[in-house]
C-alpha cells in the first residue's frame, strides 16, 4: 500500500522547549489518521510542519515519497483546514473554492465544473454566490473542506475544525466527515483534543503527550489495550487506583491498594513484587450485583454517592466501604437497577481480565 505521508524522527525545538520530540509515523493512502492529545502537547506544531509553515529542527517529512524539506506551503501537495476555517470573507463561496484552482491557472470552464461538483459532494449545491457571512457554522465547515478537497491534495490536514461548533452540530459533522472521507478516499490527518472525535472518525489514532507519541493504534485497541497509563487516563473514562504488586502469576498480578483492598488484574509487561503500580478499570467493566457463582471476579461492596443519569451513558458515583476513592460505575438502563438509591450499599465486581495496570511513573 502506498504511503501518502511519512514522518521520520521529526523534532522541533523552540529555544529550550521541545515542542515535538522524535516523532515517527506513516499514513497509508486513504487512511483517516488522528493525532489526539491535550492542548500544548505539540500536535499543532507537528501539523504546521507537515503543512510547511514551520521547518522541523531535525528529521524528515515525506509526502508520497518526496522529501518536503525546504518546500514552501504553496508548493506542497497538502492542504490545511484551519481551526477557525479561515474562509476569505471578501469572497463568495465559489470564489473561495476557485482560489486554489486559479493559482494553478486552470481553465475557467474547468474551475466552474469542479466548483459545481465539489459543492454537490459536500451537500451545498447552488451555494456558489452566497457570501461567507450568510452561511451557518456547519455550512462554513463544508465550504472549508470543499475549498481544500477541490485541489485533490495527497493529504488533507485538519486542525480541530469542529472545535468551534456546538455539541449537536459537532456530533453530526463527525459522522459526515467520516462518510465524506470514505467517499473521496483522500488521506486525512486530523488533530484534536477531543477523544470522542478521534475514536469515532479515525482508522488509526496517535495519542500524543508532551511532544512524543504514547501509542499509535486503532481506536478499539487504544480503548481496550492501552500501552501506557497516560493513554488509559486520556482515552475514555477510567477508574484509577494506585497500589503495590504483591504477587505475580503469568499475566495476572495481585495488587494491594493503600486502603488494604486486594485486586487481581492483568499486566501488559511482567512486574516484580513491590513495584508501585496504577490500576485502571473502565466504568462499564463493573458488574453491579454479580451472580454468586461467577468465577475470577474482584468482588467488593460500595456505597452509592449519587446517580448520574445521562440516558445510555448513565453512571453511579460510589465509594468503596473503607475508602474514599470515587468510582464510576456504568449503570445499564435496562430497568434492572432502578431500585438503586443514594446511600445504598451494593456489591460490585469486575473480571480480572478487564482491568489493566502499569508501573507508576515516579
Amino acid at each position, binding site marked *: 500500500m502506498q504511503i501518502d505521508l511519512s514522518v521520520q524522527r521529526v523534532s522541533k525545538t523552540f529555544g529550550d522547549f521541545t515542542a515535538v520530540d522524535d516523532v515517527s509515523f506513516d499514513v497509508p493512502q486513504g487512511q483517516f489518521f488522528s493525532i489526539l492529545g491535550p492542548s500544548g502537547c505539540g500536535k499543532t506544531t507537528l501539523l504546521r510542519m507537515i503543512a510547511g*509553515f514551520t521547518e522541523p529542527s531535525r528529521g524528515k517529512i515525506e509526502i508520497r515519497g518526496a522529501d518536503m524539506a525546504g518546500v514552501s506551503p504553496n508548493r506542497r501537495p497538502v492542504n490545511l483546514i484551519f481551526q477557525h476555517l479561515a474562509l476569505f470573507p471578501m469572497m463568495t463561496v465559489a470564489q473561495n473554492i476557485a482560489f486554489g484552482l486559479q493559482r494553478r491557472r486552470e481553465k475557467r470552464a474547468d474551475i466552474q465544473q469542479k466548483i459545481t461538483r465539489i459543492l454537490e459532494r459536500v451537500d451545498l449545491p447552488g451555494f456558489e454566490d452566497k457570501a461567507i457571512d450568510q452561511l451557518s457554522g456547519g455550512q462554513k465547515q463544508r465550504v472549508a473542506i470543499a475549498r*481544500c478537497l477541490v485541489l485533490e491534495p495527497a493529504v488533507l490536514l485538519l486542525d480541530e475544525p469542529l472545535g468551534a461548533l456546538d455539541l449537536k452540530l459537532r456530533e453530526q459533522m463527525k459522522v459526515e466527515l467520516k462518510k465524506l472521507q470514505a467517499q473521496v478516499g483522500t488521506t486525512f490527518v486530523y488533530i484534536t483534543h477531543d477523544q470522542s472525535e478521534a475514536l469515532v472518525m479515525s482508522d488509526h489514532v496517535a495519542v500524543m503527550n508532551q511532544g512524543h507519541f504514547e501509542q499509535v493504534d486503532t481506536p478499539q485497541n487504544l480503548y481496550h489495550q492501552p500501552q501506557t497509563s497516560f493513554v488509559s487516563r486520556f482515552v475514555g473514562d477510567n477508574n484509577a487506583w494506585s497500589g503495590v504488586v504483591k504477587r505475580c502469576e503469568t499475566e495476572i498480578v495481585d495488587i494491594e491498594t493503600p486502603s488494604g483492598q486486594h485486586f487481581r488484574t492483568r499486566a501488559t509487561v511482567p512486574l516484580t513484587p513491590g513495584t508501585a503500580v496504577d490500576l485502571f478499570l473502565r466504568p462499564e467493566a463493573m458488574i453491579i450485583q454479580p451472580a454468586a457463582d461467577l468465577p475470577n471476579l474482584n468482588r467488593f461492596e460500595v456505597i452509592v454517592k449519587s446517580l448520574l443519569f445521562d440516558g445510555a451513558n448513565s453512571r453511579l458515583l460510589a465509594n468503596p466501604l473503607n475508602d474514599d476513592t470515587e468510582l464510576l460505575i456504568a449503570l445499564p438502563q435496562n430497568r434492572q437497577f432502578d431500585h438503586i438509591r443514594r446511600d445504598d450499599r451494593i456489591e460490585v465486581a469486575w473480571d480480572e481480565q478487564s482491568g489493566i495496570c502499569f508501573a507508576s511513573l515516579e
Partner: protein
Amino acid sequence: MKRRFHLTLPLICFLTPVLLWLLLLIVLPHVELLRMSLRTEDFGGDPAWGVANFMNFFKEPIYWLTFVRTAVYSIMVTVMTFIVAMPVAFYITKVVAPRFQGFLMMLLLMPFWVSELVRVYGWMILLRESGVINHFLTGLGILNQPIEMLYNDVTMVMGLVYTSMLFMAVPLVSVLESLDDSLIEAAYDLGANMGTILFRIVIPHAMPGIVSGSIVVFMLTLGNYLTPNLMGGKNSLWFTEQIYNQFIASFNWNQGSAFGFLLLVLSSLVIWVGLKLTRQKLSRVVQ
C-alpha cells in the same frame, strides 16, 4: 424597525456644543465666504452680485494651472504615501514580535510630537545649498560644488509624503491588526504567492483603512500651506498660496473666497470619485 429619534433634554445638552461649534465656526464663515465670493463690481464701480470672481479663475491660466497641478500632486502624494506606509504597517502588525509593536508605533509617532513647522525647517537644514547633505557630499568629493535641493517639485512632494505618513499608517495598522493571520496562511497553503496574497487578501481586507487614510492624506495635502510654501518655494506653486495671495497680498477677499470655494468643491469631488472607484461607503470608511 427603526427607532424614533426623540429630542430629550440630555440629548440637547450633549448636542448643543457640537451644533454651536459647527454653526459658528464652520457654517457661518462658509456662508459669509460664499456671499463674498459672489460680490463684484458693476460697470460703474458699485458693488453688485455676479460670478466675475469665478470667471477670473478660468480666464487666467496661472490660476487654473496651479489648481490642476495641486489636484494632481495631491493625488500623487496620496498614492506615494500609501506605497510607503503599507509595508511599514504590514511589518508592524504582522511581521514583528508583538512586544515590539508598541515601540515601533512610538517611533512612528515621535516625529509628530514636534510641529510641522519645525519638521519642515529640519528638512530645510538638511537640504539647502549650505545644508548638511551638501556639506557631506562636497566634503566626500562626490559633488564639486553644492547644489540647491530645495525649491523644486521633487523635494516638495517628498516633504508632503513625510508630513502625511502618520495619517496613512495609523488607519492601515488598525485595519491590518483586524486581519486574521490564518487568512494569509490559508491563501499561502492554497498555492498563492506573496503577490496574490497582497492583492487578493490583504488589500481587499484593508480597503476601508486605505480609503480613510487616503481621504485624510489627500485633504491635508490639498489644504497644506506650510510645506509647499517653505519647501517648494516660488517654483512649486500650490493653490493654497494663491488663496493666501488674494487675501493678504492683494486684499481681494472676494477673489480669495471664490478660490477657497473652488478648492472645497475640488476636494469633495475627488473624494466622491475615489469612493465610487473603490466601491466604499463614506459611513463605513469613517468608522
